[in-house]
Each structure stands twice: as C-alpha cells, then as structure tokens.
C-alpha cells in the first residue's frame, strides 16, 4: 500500500463533531427566535403589511452671487412612480392611470421598463404632474395600489441672467458612471453636476440621500416606520456663493444678445470673475431636472453651438492685442529703440510677399508708442524681423499663454504659443519662413488664445505683472457647522523681469489707445473713468474678422479687467470696444465693492 496511514484519533473526530454541533445549535437557536419567539410580530408584518424603502431626499445646495442674490434654487415637482411588483399582474391600474394622466397604456409600460430599478423600487412614469392629477390619484388611491408620487427637487433659476455656461447642468447618473462613483454614496438615478460649477463644486453642493424602511398596508398606505439600524438620515447640500455679480452678468448677456462671442469681467487683483458670457447660450431651465432627449439633441445639433463655452473653450487668433507681448520683449531686450521712427506705407514686402497694414494708405513715420496707439502692423513687422521667435514665445509664455488658467470650470482649452520647435514640428525643418513670424507678431497664424486667457492677460497688464487664477468659487455655507468657508486659490508665478518703466510705458500707450483722438479703441471710452485697452482684429478663415478688445479700468482700489470677443464682428475698434466701454460704464455706475471682495482681495 503506497498510501500513508491515517493516524487520526477519536479526539480529533469528537472535537470536530462538537464544533459542528455548536454551529448548528447557534443556527437552530436563531431560527427558534425568529419562528417561535417572534412569530407573531413577523406574521403581523407579513400578513397585512409590506416593507418599503422610502428615500429621503437631500436637497442640493443653492447657488448665490457675490452679493447674496439667489441664482439657482430648488423647486419641488411631483413625479408619478409605479412599484413594478405591485402592478405587475394588475392591468386595471395601467388603464386607470392612463385615463387620469392622458399617457397611453403602452407608453406607461415602456416608461416602467425604461426606469426599472428593481421590482420593489419605484419606477418613474411621469414628471412634474399637476395638482389636478395629483388630487385625482389621491382620490382613487384604493384602485391604484403600487402607484405613488414622489416629491422631487429640481433646479430652478429665478434670476434674470442665464449664466448657463458657468452654472453647467445636472445629469442623471447611469449604471456606467455608478461603477466609478458609488463609493461616494451615489445611487443610480441620482442627479450629479455634469458641467460648470455644478460639476466643479459637486462635492459641496450635493446632498446625500437618506432612506427609511416603512411598513405599508395592502393599499400602499404607510402605517409605520420600521426601526432599523439600516436607515440613513439625509444630509443636505451646502450653499455655494459665486464671484459673479448677477446684475453685471445680466447686462453683458443682454449686450451680446444676438451676437456670437464672449465677454468676461474679472477683478484683476483677486481673479474673481464678475461676469462671463458666451453667446449664443441657452436657458438653464432646459436642464432643470432630467433632460428630455429631444431638447438635448436640438442643442447638440445647433450649428451655432450654444452648449460651447466660447469664453474658455473657444480658441481664437488674438489679433493685434497680442502686439503688447512683442512690445515687452523688445523693450526689455533693447531690440529696437522705442524712439526710432519707422515708416509705414501700408504694406511690408518680404521677398515677393506683401504683408499689409490695416490702414491702406499707411501710418507714415511712427515710434513704438504711436505704433501701439495706432496698432500699426508694419512697425511690428519690422520689429519682429530683428527678434528671435523663441524670445517672443518666451514672453508669451511669461504671460502664461499656451497654459491652462486652471479656472474652476470643466473643459477649458489650452491655446497654442508657437515657438521654433513647434513650427519645425508642424511645417518641417525649414518649412516655415520669416513670414510666419510676421503673422505671429500681430496675433495671427498658429497662435491661439481663449478669451479667458486674454482677460487674465489684461489683468496682468493692469497690475503690472500679477498673474491670477480666474475663478468663480467665492465661499460656501457649511450646513453642518453653519459657517462660511472661503475658497483659496493659488496664483501662478507673476511675470518677472520687466522693469517698472516698461510697464508704465505700455500702460500709457493703452490709455492713449482709448483716450487719444487717433487711438483705435476710442469707442471704449467712459466718462470719468480711466480706461486702458487694446483692440484686435483677428482674421480667420470662416468669414469676417473677429473683433477683440482687452482692457481694464482703475477706480479707487478696484481694478477690473475686461475682454470682449465678437465673432465676425469686424474691427476691434468697432463692436468689441463699444461693448467693453458699455460694460465698464455699467460697472462704474452699479458695482459697489462688497466686504467679501476686499477680504478675498487681501488674500
């Protein structure tokens, strides 16, 4: 026999049997407890009652503007639900329900199928039902077992402004998303912030649902709560305060109505965004609760792309506003004497190619200062010929172009600052010429910026070098402690290595752009307010030029940076400057620095 002998003792066997016996005794005792001791209790529950899980909604936090004006609140709507199990064999329920609601029987069945979450969990068949329907259902309660309505809280927007791109919207969590986020306490069918600040501040805004186990009788009426340690209390969402001034926001939206473009107003010191408009936009009401697929596809397929946030997703050539970068590069590195005169005859010849100035007749002889005020292209063509492209690109990057601003909104674009390496890669070594440089210096060619980067640039010019992180989050009211919590943003590196004299030089030129009689930005002038600016006219392959204006105003302690972009708006001195002037005028008349502002500004 090749097997090893079994040397087990009877002690082993008896110990094992004793263990098995003990385990079975425990099970048996528990069954005795359930079936004999507590029989009547369980029999009672089982006979007349059923247990149902009731979700306790936790309202999402509200959203206010910087002055405490409400922007987003919750409103309640009644939804009609069906417990699939209780109606599964009961056609009369569907017939009656169809008569009351006017929804066809097959449609109701389809919706039950679509929203099915389990046999005992309510499936939604209608949203926002009116009071008449509600009373009728309540009256015929006994004929409608398994039909119940739930109070759902949806977003509503009482304010005048849309602010749709900033607010974003909510979306129903589907099974796919749930796999990633269920550890954070979400359930299928919950709403989650999917864009805008609703997404960015989801963890602050969202409440956590609670649930309770209740006993219901055969008619589906609640008869009592089951005391159970498994029930969970709801936790409300926290209220969020944005940096936006809703009045200003409304004003800019009305100003840009009917146009395509973007406008941003930002506090240059703190990075607080007071208004951000992207047109065309859409009414946030469309996304108040669960979005109908029709609405969704209409917005998605709109040729004007209303869902697209031009203010931070859109990338455009910067046009002449970008000349200022070359000015700093030249002054700081003594490329060209600012007092040297260069003659503009309206055209610059490079080999056989002609590069035009915007003024057909030419500007005549001018120095750097006049070239900025008049936005003379030929002057800058001459300038960039003497400069290394990488030096120019370095200065563009000093101002953090080609980098995310890290604004607290989802989906920002980065833009492009081309340097030699970039051009070599794109066109091949030697595949690009001095002509590319000429285009870049006037903000054309491969250079791409977002309006948000431009407003930050304007702010940097206004503060002589401070680069802020633009943001919308101001603070939130922690509903656990009932205290305000202020958000803290860290700014990127300031622009260094530019002397004060050069900052002053550019500031003076920008003042003249708006305030001198031949400045290109005269349309942005505001009475009794120091406005500084630079216009831009960006050629683009899609049609008429885009109109740019970037600038800032200084009043008391407040420095406001503003950027307006009008797609196909013609020259920068036109539409964009007009809009920027009106916006700053509005700010002068209506904005009062609030205490909260100063608190943030000193951060």
């Amino acid at each position: 026999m090749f097997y090893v002998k079994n040397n087990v003792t009877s002690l082993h066997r008896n110990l094992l049997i004793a263990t098995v016996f003990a385990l079975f005794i425990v099970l048996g005792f528990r069954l005795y407890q359930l079936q004999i001791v507590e029989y009547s209790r369980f029999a009672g529950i089982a006979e007349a009652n059923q247990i149902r899980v009731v979700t306790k909604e936790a309202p999402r936090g509200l959203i206010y503007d910087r002055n405490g004006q409400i922007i987003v609140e919750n409103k309640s709507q009644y939804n009609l639900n069906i417990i699939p199990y209780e109606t599964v064999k009961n056609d009369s329920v569907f017939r009656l329900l169809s008569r009351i609601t006017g929804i066809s029987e097959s449609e109701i069945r389809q919706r039950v199928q679509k929203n099915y979450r389990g046999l005992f969990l309510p499936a939604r068949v209608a949203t926002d039902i009116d009071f008449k329907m509600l009373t009728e259902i309540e009256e015929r309660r006994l004929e409608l077992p398994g039909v119940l309505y739930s109070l759902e809280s949806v977003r509503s927007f009482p304010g005048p402004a849309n602010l749709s791109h900033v607010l974003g919207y909510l979306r129903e969590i589907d099974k796919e998303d749930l796999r990633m986020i269920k550890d954070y306490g979400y359930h299928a069918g919950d709403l989650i912030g999917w864009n805008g600040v609703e997404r960015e501040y989801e963890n602050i805004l969202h409440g956590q649902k609670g649930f309770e186990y209740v006993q219901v009788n055969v008619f589906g009426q609640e008869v009592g709560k089951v005391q159970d340690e498994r029930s969970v209390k709801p936790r409300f969402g926290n209220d969020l305060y944005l940096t936006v001034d809703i009045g200003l926001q409304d004003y800019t939206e009305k100003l840009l109505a009917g146009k395509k473009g973007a406008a941003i107003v930002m506090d240059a010191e703190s990075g607080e965004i007071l208004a951000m408009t992207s047109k065309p936009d859409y009414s946030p009401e469309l996304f108040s609760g669960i979005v109908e697929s029709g609405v969704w596809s209409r917005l998605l397929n709109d040729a004007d792309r209303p869902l697209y946030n031009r203010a931070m997703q859109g990338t455009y050539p910067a046009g002449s506003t970008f000349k200022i970068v070359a000015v700093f590069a030249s002054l700081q590195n003594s490329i060209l004497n600012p007092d040297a005169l260069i003659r503009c005859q309206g055209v610059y010849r490079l080999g056989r190619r002609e590069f035009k100035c915007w003024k057909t007749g030419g500007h005549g002889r001018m120095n750097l200062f006049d070239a900025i005020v008049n936005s003379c292209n030929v002057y800058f063509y001459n300038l960039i010929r003497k400069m290394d492209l990488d030096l120019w690109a370095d200065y563009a990057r000093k101002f953090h172009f080609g980098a995310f601003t890290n604004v607290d909104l989802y989906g920002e674009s980065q833009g492009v600052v081309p340097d030699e390496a970039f051009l070599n890669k794109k066109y091949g070594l030697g595949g690009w010429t001095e002509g590319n440089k000429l285009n870049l210096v006037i903000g054309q060619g491969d250079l791409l910026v977002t309006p948000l980067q431009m407003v930050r640039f304007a702010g940097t010019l206004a503060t002589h070098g401070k680069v802020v992180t633009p943001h919308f989050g101001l603070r939130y009211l922690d509903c656990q402690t009932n205290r305000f919590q202020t958000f803290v943003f860290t700014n990127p590196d300031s622009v260094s290595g530019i002397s004060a004299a050069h900052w002053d030089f550019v500031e003076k030129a920008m003042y003249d752009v708006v305030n001198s009689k031949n400045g290109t930005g005269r349309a942005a002038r505001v009475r009794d307010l120091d406005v500084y600016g630079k216009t831009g006219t960006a050629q683009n392959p899609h049609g008429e030029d885009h109109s740019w204006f970037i600038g800032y105003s200084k009043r008391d302690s407040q420095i406001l940076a503003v950027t307006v972009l009008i797609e196909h708006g013609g020259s920068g001195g036109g539409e964009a400057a007009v809009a920027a002037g009106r916006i700053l005028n509005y700010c002068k008349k209506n904005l009062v620095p609030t205490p909260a502002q100063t608190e943030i500004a000193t951060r």
Partner: protein
Amino acid sequence: MKKPVQIGRSISSSNFLIAFTVLLLCIAGLLALYSASLHVDAPFFKKVIGKQLLWMILGMVTMSGISVIQKKLLFDGAYIYYWLGIALIILPYLMGDSVTGTSRWFVLGPIHFQPSEFMKILVIITVARYLSGSDLIISDFRSLIIPLLLVLLPMGIVIKQPDLGTAVIYFFLVFPMLFWAGARPYHLFLIVAPILSIVTAFNFYSFFIWVLILILALYLGKEKIWIAVVLFVFNLSLGFLTPVLWNRLKPYQQNRIMTLFNVDIDPQGSGYQVIQSQVAIGSGGLFGKGIGNGTQTHLKFLPKQHNDFIFSVVGEEYGFAGVMLVLLLFFTLIILLINVAYRLRDRFSSLVVIGFASVFLYHVVINIGMTVGLLPVTGLPLPFLSYGGSFIISCFIMIGIVFNISLERRR
C-alpha cells in the same frame, strides 16, 4: 485494530445513508423551488425547478461516473489538476464580462459555469495529497506553509473577481484538514491570530480580551521566549496600527473595503433583502404556511430567492419543523462524512473527505446565517437546495469522490 471487512461494511452502509440524505435534501430543494416558480408562466423545463431537476440528474450521472474511476488517478494527478484549475479560474478573469464588472462566470457557448466552484474540490485534493506525503513532519510549523500557499493562490484570484464568499471558503477549508492531519492547534492558532488582531482592534474590549487570549495561547504553546515575544509584539502592533491606518483612509476607500466584506454593495438592496428574508422565515411559525402558500409573496420576486435566499422560502412554507428537518439533514450529512473520514485507513482519502465536509459545513452555516441576519450577505449558495448548475454539480462530484474513495477498499 479493527478488521477490514467490518470497515468495508460499515462504510458501505454509511454511503447508503449519505446517498439517502442527499436525496432528501434534493427533494427539499425542489419543493422550495416549486413554490418559487409557481407563478412563472413557462414550460416546465424552462422554469428554475425544471432546470434544477436537469442539473440534479446530470449531477447524479457525474457522481456515478466519478465513483467508479480509480482513486490512484486522483492521488497521482493532484498537482496537475491543481494547475489546470488555476488556469481555469484565471480564464474568466481574462475574458470576463466587463459589463457587470464581475468575472466569476466562465462562458462557453450556451454553457455558463463558475470554475471557482470546481476549484474547491481540486484545492482539497491537492492539499490532501501534500499532507499525505510520507516524509512530512506535520508537527513542524514549516510543513504548514505549502498547504497555505496552495489555498492562498486561488483565494487571491477569486477575491478579485469579486467573490469574497468563495475566497473565504478557500482559506478556511484548509484548517480542518490541517487539524485532521495532526497539525498542532497552537500552530493553526498562530496562522489565524493576525486576522483576529486586525478584526478585534476596532473595539477596545474585544481587543483587550483578544490580547489576554493571545498571552494565554503563547504561554500554553511553550514557545521559546524570544519567539513568543516577537509573535506577541507583531500581533499587538498589527492591532494598534489597524485603527490608525483605517482612520487615515478616505471615506470612499473605507467604503470600498466595507463593500468588499459585504458583497451586496447596495445597502438599500441588501438591507431590504435581509429584512424580507427574516420576515419570511419568522412568519413561517412552527409548521409554516404550506407549500406555495407563502403569504409573504413578494419574497417570490426577490431576485435571489431561488438561489442564495432559498432557505427563507423553506422557512416560510415549512416553518420551524421544516427548517429543523433541513438542518438535521445537513448535520447528518456532515457527521456521516466525518465518520467516513475517521474510518478510512489511508490519510489521503481521509483528508479529502474532511475537506469536503468542511466545504458543506461552511456553505450551510454562512448561507443560513445570512438568511437569518446573523452574518453579512455573501453570495454563497446552500448545497443541494440553491438553484445553480455549477454548484449542484460540484456538490455531486464531492459526494461521488467520497463514494469512490470509500469503496475502493472492497475491490
């Protein structure tokens, strides 16, 4: 020393008893499934009861086939089977169903099966094979390392699938086998000690009591003093570290670990099921409501009532008397298996039977413990009662191997 003839006769009579017990359990399962599928409008063999009957017949055929093959095949091929089994449980992981996120099913055309069920059998055979090596000194702690590795490998694989219930069974089935093979209980205690140190650390009193037990055990273990100190410090620091590490985890990470130990992740869902299951069992009373008469009818619509929660159907419809009968049948089966193992003369066979007995025991205790609310919800089925092809066939295979092993002496 008993005479071989006597052993043969007593084993064959206990085999008859085992077969009879299994048959009764199958009938109980079919009766419960009968009420479960009472209101399902489908041809008989499309209902769970019909399908289960087919699985049972298939299982009995497999059992008969296995009971006549040569035992030598099991013994000699053990290690090969083991690695084949490992390959099989990795396979569904590679081609797993990404939609549900679980990959414990293996799909082969129209056939779905769970290789992890069959792997239990292979693990038991392999561990038994190792423990019956002729030059093995079982009282040496080092002899326990290989068997532990043999169970930890498949456990590590299925724990990722995710199937915590099965993984736990892999781990714990080795202990009765080691005990049976003559390992020192003190060594087994040392293996389980770190786990207990971690678990008890969440409560001061439980940890305090545990530390006392630990000291006592180390004292009784008559260990060299420095080894005892090292072991003590190791376990103690595990216990102290656990709450610290736990509190440093973010809530969602804690949640992830919690859900690992509570396979039904949706607290709403599992809480509901356990309440319903307890109401069903409790309302069954002494004699139950009779077949098909469960007034706690909505239990019939619980998704798992015909597999994981089948016992609550039994409890509701047959009452305390019914569940006691089922418990008695399981008890009988396990005791019979232990007795067979006791009487078998070679260690390999004896250990295999003990391994099977522990699998049955764990399944019964964990499953019933879950339906009565004593233990967390894990997806472990009840042998011979729960619906499910892979599991029922693997149960019959185990019985078949028991028959095979115990009959060979007579040939």
